[in-house]
């Protein structure tokens, strides 16, 4: 009995820690994104609330909380109100199996990577709920685009992870990072980005499409669809959609770091930090978060630089470009692993 209570307590602590980590990062990200994009546009960005405008996210939150909560008259009320909650919950689910340090993971599932692929496909349902429930043509068009986009990019996403899984021989994210934690000559890390460069490119493109960011932000391209599936949402519900979107951003970057960039391992520094005792975990988290923000900055840079693609180009790129590349990568990895 006490064993059961212990495991429930551990799960609770893990979930609370995941939510805290994500919330802090999301709050910081909303500020960082506006600031980085502003600098790329040669503007200042938010600089009134607090030093460097750092308190801007809190001001935004307060504003959204006090806004009127509007439900369109012809909306399907049940579906309309349920959709933001579902979007938020489904966004949280994949984060549970991503560790930010060795053992610092809410649930180290044996089927980790497969689990992430499965639950990240759920958020399409929430978006279609929002699209249909709003009873608005722009919402519906945006929702249809999202569904088409996430269905077609999920296939190369999953296939590009297969090569790594085959090399490691395990689906657990902890094992995948462990497999990368050594270096040639003590300097060049054995990260999977060097073993699987093709998979890295495919995964990066597919994960950007899954997040729905520029150049693949067709679901909410404001010049044609107002705001896509969340056109009719205001106040707290809109905030939940934004929150879910940024959680996708954080989780996607964290997954990229875990799979291809060695997670919390950095050559030279990590071996030194091994004999620091408890401080070791602090170093691991710092390395992981630093790598995550490199990816996040890169994606913001992409957003500030590129333009939006057309729908047919984007779907064509997914099916005719990424899918054959991902399949080729699987075949080549399989042949090399068998011959070795």
């Amino acid at each position: 009995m006490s064993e059961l209570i212990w495991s429930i307590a551990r799960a609770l602590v893990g979930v609370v820690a995941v939510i805290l980590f994500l919330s802090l990062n999301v709050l910081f990200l909303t500020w960082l994104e506006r600031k980085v994009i502003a600098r790329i546009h040669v503007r200042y960005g938010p600089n009134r609330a607090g030093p460097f405008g750092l308190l801007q996210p809190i001001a935004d939150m307060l504003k959204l909380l006090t806004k009127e909560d509007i439900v369109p008259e012809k909306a399907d009320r049940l579906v309309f109100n349920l959709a933001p909650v579902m979007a938020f919950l489904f966004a949280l689910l994949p984060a549970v199996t991503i560790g930010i340090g060795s053992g610092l993971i809410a649930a180290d599932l044996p089927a980790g990577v497969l689990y992430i692929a499965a639950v990240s496909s759920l958020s399409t349902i929430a978006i279609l709920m929002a699209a249909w429930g709003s009873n608005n043509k722009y919402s519906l068009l945006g929702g249809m685009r999202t569904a088409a986009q996430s269905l077609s990019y999920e296939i190369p996403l999953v296939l590009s992870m297969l090569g790594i899984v085959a090399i490691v021989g395990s689906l657990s994210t902890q094992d995948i990072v462990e497999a990368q934690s050594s270096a040639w000559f003590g300097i060049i890390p054995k990260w999977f980005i060097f073993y699987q460069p093709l998979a890295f490119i495919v995964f990066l493109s597919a994960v950007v499409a899954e997040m729905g960011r520029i150049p693949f932000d067709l679901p909410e391209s404001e010049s044609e669809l107002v705001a896509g599936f969340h056109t009719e949402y205001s106040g707290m519900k809109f905030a939940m959609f934004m929150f879910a979107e940024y959680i996708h951003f954080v989780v996607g970057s964290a997954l990229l770091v875990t799979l291809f960039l060695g997670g919390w391992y950095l050559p030279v520094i990590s071996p030194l930090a091994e004999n620091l005792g408890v401080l070791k975990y602090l170093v691991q988290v710092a390395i992981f978060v630093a790598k995550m923000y490199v990816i996040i900055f890169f994606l913001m840079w992409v957003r500030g630089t590129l333009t939006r693609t057309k729908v047919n180009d984007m779907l064509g790129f997914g099916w005719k470009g990424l899918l054959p590349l991902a399949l080729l990568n699987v075949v080549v990895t399989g042949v090399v692993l068998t011959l070795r």
Partner: protein
Amino acid sequence: MIQDAVFLVISLCAVAGAAGVVFAQRLFHAVLSLALCLLSVAAIYITLGAEFLAVIQVLVYAGGVVVLFLFAVMLTKSDLQLKREPLDTFAPVSAVLFGVLVLFYIARTGFVAHGERGAAPGDVASVGQVIFSPTKYALPFELVGILLLAAMVGAIYLARRDERW
């Protein structure tokens, strides 16, 4: 004790979802309750220790099939033709009779359980060994692959909009 309660809650969710599929007035709600039912079935698989199947259930059904059904509801405008379907008198009666008959025969059949619940491993590796082993399911696996390819080609051929190729 707790396991019994968990099983009860999950089964109630599954049955409620299934009932919603059949009885929900609006078809969109019916698809959402199908999603609830399919996720509950995934939870049932977890209680049986079949974690691989649970993940596959979520991946294929909740992520793929449910989205397909949502698409179908939207594209065929089924929700806009809201006529109350006239209820057959015989259909519910025969369904209840059928259910009672099935439950009666299940109760009469003596299932011999060799082991405890979760006696079989359900992780990815052990299921993979069964599916890919040449002496067991390797041939059916290949056939399923061909079937899926045929289904994909057929679906694309049927759903294409223009007649020219």
